[in-house]
């Protein structure tokens, strides 16, 4: 996950480099550090450095890191010849390297030679059974071939070993949501909240999944997690504010007339509604009329 500051820094650098203002190496390092997928830009700007002998030698030992980065970006952009060339250079420099072996297997993947890639990964895993990247490539290959149940299986196996990999839990949750397997997605978010209880993103996603599942208990829990998201984000998260309104309305529909619940519920809802209206008035005033009507219909039904 990327912070706002990092995002701004990245965008600034990106437009600077795009407009020939220099800073290509800085940009490439930032992309690598933040693990972002900006393959077309990395390919373009990385190649401009690599194809320029003086710029290339100015990098010193980092030259090889750049070859690796450009190789991966090239594969993502289906520029397989470029990737092949980069890997060749790396192979020459590091003849016994497993890291280069990984890139070669990745190239097989990019070509769609699934079986060969799988063989390559299996043999790499024999020597290094705890290589997370290779395990994850198995999941990616399954996904790319449209074998989603296979991807889920591999990902679950991966998480049994590497249960602290938050990105993997998130990926699994997203796959479950895309298949409408909401209970399983909820479980993933529960794991994430347990290990990182102060990350509002997980509270929000969990609430969204629970609301989608429906039923009184889930709606009540969803509301709690929308509220905790509001707490953790200082009341600034639009989705959580909407979520509270949706939940209150849905809960009242389901319970129809349990007065205790209603009184408490409508307080939080009207607070959330007020915050939303104030925010829209300030930042999206032309959308305010629709918001007011929508909120009214949600509060009327509760």
């Amino acid at each position: 996950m990327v912070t706002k500051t990092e995002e701004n820094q990245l965008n600034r650098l990106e437009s600077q480099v795009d407009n020939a203002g220099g800073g290509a190496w800085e940009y490439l390092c930032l992309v690598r550090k933040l693990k972002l997928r900006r393959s077309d830009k990395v390919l373009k700007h990385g190649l401009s450095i690599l194809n320029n002998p003086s710029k290339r030698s100015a990098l010193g030992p980092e030259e090889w890191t750049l070859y690796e980065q450009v190789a991966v970006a090239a594969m993502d952009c289906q520029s397989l010849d470029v990737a092949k060339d980069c890997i060749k250079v790396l192979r020459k420099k590091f003849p016994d390297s497993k890291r280069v072996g990984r890139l070669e297997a990745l190239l097989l993947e990019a070509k769609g030679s699934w079986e060969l890639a799988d063989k390559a990964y299996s043999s790499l895993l024999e020597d290094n059974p705890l290589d997370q990247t290779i395990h994850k490539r198995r999941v990616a290959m399954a996904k790319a071939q449209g074998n989603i149940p296979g991807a889920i299986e591999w990902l679950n196996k991966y998480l049994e070993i590497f249960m602290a990999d938050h990105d993997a839990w998130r990926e699994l949750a997203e796959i479950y949501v895309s298949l409408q397997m909401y209970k399983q997605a909820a479980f993933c978010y529960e794991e994430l909240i347990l290990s990182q209880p102060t990350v509002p993103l997980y509270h929000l996603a969990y609430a969204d999944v629970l609301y989608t599942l429906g039923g009184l208990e889930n709606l009540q829990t969803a509301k709690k997690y929308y509220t905790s998201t509001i707490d953790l984000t200082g009341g600034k998260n639009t989705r959580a504010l909407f979520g509270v309104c949706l939940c209150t309305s849905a809960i009242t529909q389901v319970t129809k007339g349990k007065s205790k619940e209603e009184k408490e519920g409508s307080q939080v809802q009207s607070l959330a509604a007020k915050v939303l209206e104030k925010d829209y008035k300030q930042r999206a005033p032309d959308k305010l009329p629709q918001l007011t009507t929508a909120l009214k219909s949600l509060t009327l039904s509760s």
Partner: protein
Amino acid sequence: MGSSSGDLRYELSQNAYIKLVLHSLNHPTSSVNGVLIGRISPSNDAVLIDDAVPLFHSHLGLLPQLEISLMLIEEYFSAKGLNIVGYFHANERSDDYELGGVAKNIGDHICRYFPQAAILLLDNKKLEALKKSKDRSAVTQLYVRDASKNWKLVQSEGNSRFSLREPSANLILLDYISTEKWKGIVDFDDHLDDISKDWLNPGLFN
């Protein structure tokens, strides 16, 4: 043909078409979706899709964001005499031509309010081939519900059931693609992350 959508034509305006395709190009590694906005033609024989609103590029299967977006969008367009008349979906993988559960469920939901609603599924291969093929037909597949409320693909060969309103739409689309116009597209996800971003995309075609 006994169903209500049995004889209807579907006509897609350039603006709606381009918005939806650009939205998919803006998020090439995820599935995306959107809603189609329009009305029944005065002659009652066609659904005219005048506009589109790109919705999400993540967690398409979750309800809260969908419910909010449909409420706000419906509210905005009904004041102009237009309805939500369909749904657009682009799958995550370029070779995936399946109309998945999420798409069908959302389509069914829209049908409750507009029974003749259609689903458009992005045809990735056709989109990719567009630069060379000079094809004038849309790079989308059309699905409508049959009498048993199952979503069925409307075959495109020689068919007049689905057409682009402006015959040069693909040329304009290619032009927008070459100038990377997809970068400016705002969808509902972007709006919920920052409400100052306008899901109507007012400046897109200037």
